[in-house]
């Protein structure tokens, strides 16, 4: 029996969500009606476009380009900063809505979900009708539009949703592949990116149909197992399950790309301290303690490395995480200019069951301090209290946002 899979994708997520939030709070302008973008902070470093409105698209503005170049294309462009707490909230609202239709909901990313509808057909009826209902409810109840792709596999459902936007229900069942999928350019095939596409075009493969009709052995010869994957995808062959996300948090981390190269230990330590503040605060807020601290670095040439250590005790203290991170960095770093640092903690245990180190006499005072600082920040904001070393340092006292740890994802694997 064939499965029925739905892929739900929010149209211009960051921008739509920002637009709806503003409307709900009394704004008279809908950001989606004017050329607008969600862009990173321009003042601190080179901001880039994270999301764009449809009017902005007409000016040729693309996701990923700098705000500077976007403004050149459209001088009156409105830019708003990203708000990740808003996006998490909207994403959860979407997930909740989808769970009314099936319990097999896989949160693929903050703005995309897969739903295995197979078991629900008998109860709820025709998937296209249900998809239209989902779209209507997202629009009317949640305030933003989504695309829904329907097929028998996650791959085809996802590709279906990409065919025409916004606010559409599109099917791409196996018998529709030749008419709907094959005419598309190969760049539109999932997993075929800016590195692979030119290679395929050189081989005379310009459309997904060309790729599908090419002998798989030739593709394997040029692109190895990836070639076989592409061929499978072009022929709609993909069978992964819809995996409902486990709600369990596996780790908490924060990382940052610095605005200028990090070239000495003092600078690096400051960045690590700043990251430790964020990580520590989030651990305590979640009621976790960690036993594993990992530091990752990336140099100006994009080479990454990391080092981790399991502690003999569990901790939620900013300073303990920081001390461990400092040691790890000194073991890891060879002194070349760095551009990206990260701290990751895992092996989490609930804070109330914590095993302290037998040698640690200061734990009570440290916890009191951390707790007092958390209290002040909760009431008066994160900038209300900061460590003295950050004054005039050019580095923010707390770096890193919500982080992607909630989604075992940002993976391109279905």
């Amino acid at each position, binding site marked *: 029996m064939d499965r029925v899979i739905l892929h739900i994708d929010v149209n211009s997520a960051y921008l739509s969500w920002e637009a709806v939030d503003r409307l709900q*709070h*009394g*704004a*008279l*302008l809908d950001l989606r009606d004017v050329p607008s973008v969600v862009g990173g902070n321009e003042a601190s470093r080179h901001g880039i476009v994270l999301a764009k409105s449809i009017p902005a698209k007409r000016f040729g503005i693309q996701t990923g380009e700098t705000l500077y170049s976007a403004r050149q294309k459209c001088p009156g462009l409105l830019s708003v900063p990203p708000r990740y707490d*808003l996006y998490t*909230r909207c994403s959860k*609202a979407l997930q909740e809505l989808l769970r009314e239709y099936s319990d097999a909901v896989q949160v693929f990313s903050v703005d995309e979900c897969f739903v295995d509808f197979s078991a629900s057909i008998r109860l709820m009826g025709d998937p296209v009708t249900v998809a239209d209902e989902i779209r209507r409810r997202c629009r009317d109840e*949640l305030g933003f539009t989504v695309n829904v792709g329907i097929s028998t596999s996650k791959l085809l459902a996802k590709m279906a949703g990409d065919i025409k936007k916004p606010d559409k229900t599109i099917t791409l069942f196996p018998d529709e592949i030749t008419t709907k999928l094959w005419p598309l350019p190969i760049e539109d095939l999932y997993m075929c990116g800016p590195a692979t596409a030119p290679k395929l075009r050189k081989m005379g493969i310009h459309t997904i149909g060309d790729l599908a009709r090419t002998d798989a052995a030739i593709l394997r010869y040029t692109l190895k197992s990836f070639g076989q994957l592409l061929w499978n995808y072009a022929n709609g062959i993909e069978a992964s399950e819809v995996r409902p996300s486990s709600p369990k948090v596996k780790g908490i981390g924060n990382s940052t790309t610095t605005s200028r190269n990090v070239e000495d230990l003092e600078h690096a330590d400051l960045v690590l301290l700043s990251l430790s503040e964020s990580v520590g605060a989030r651990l305590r807020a979640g009621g976790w303690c960690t036993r594993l601290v990992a530091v990752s670095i990336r140099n100006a040439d994009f080479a990454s490395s990391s080092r981790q250590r399991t502690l003999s005790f569990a901790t939620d203290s900013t300073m303990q995480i920081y001390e461990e991170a400092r040691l790890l960095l000194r073991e890891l770093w060879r002194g070349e200019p760095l551009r990206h640092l990260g701290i990751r903690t895992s092996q989490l245990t609930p804070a109330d069951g914590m095993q302290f180190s037998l040698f640690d006499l200061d734990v009570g005072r440290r916890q009191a301090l951390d707790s007092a600082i958390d209290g002040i920040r909760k009431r008066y904001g994160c900038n209300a209290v900061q460590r003295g070393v950050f004054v005039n340092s050019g580095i923010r006292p707390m770096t890193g946002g919500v982080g992607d740890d909630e989604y075992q994802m940002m993976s391109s694997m279905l």
Partner: protein
Amino acid sequence: MEYRSPSEKQLQQMLNDLNHGGGMRPVDVIARFIGIQAPRPVKFRLPQEDVTVIVDRIISQSEDRRAGNRMIVYCCESEVRGVKRRYELKYEIATCRWYLCSG
């Protein structure tokens, strides 16, 4: 007289003002909580003007769930200076804040 078009910053500020609090403003409210029902506003005050209005009648109550942010919307009516006026009061559950809208 020379005309100077608004600077980028001024334009942003104008648009910001339009976007934020254009149609809605925070107000102080006294409300009645009975049992497990949603709170019912009794009277509200505009903090800046120090004006108080008694809610004569709640015509309807609904929920606004946009962007996953639950707000209870009360369509209300009050007689102010001899004229019956309709407006909306919104209660934002996540922040426990009340807003007045023209409705």
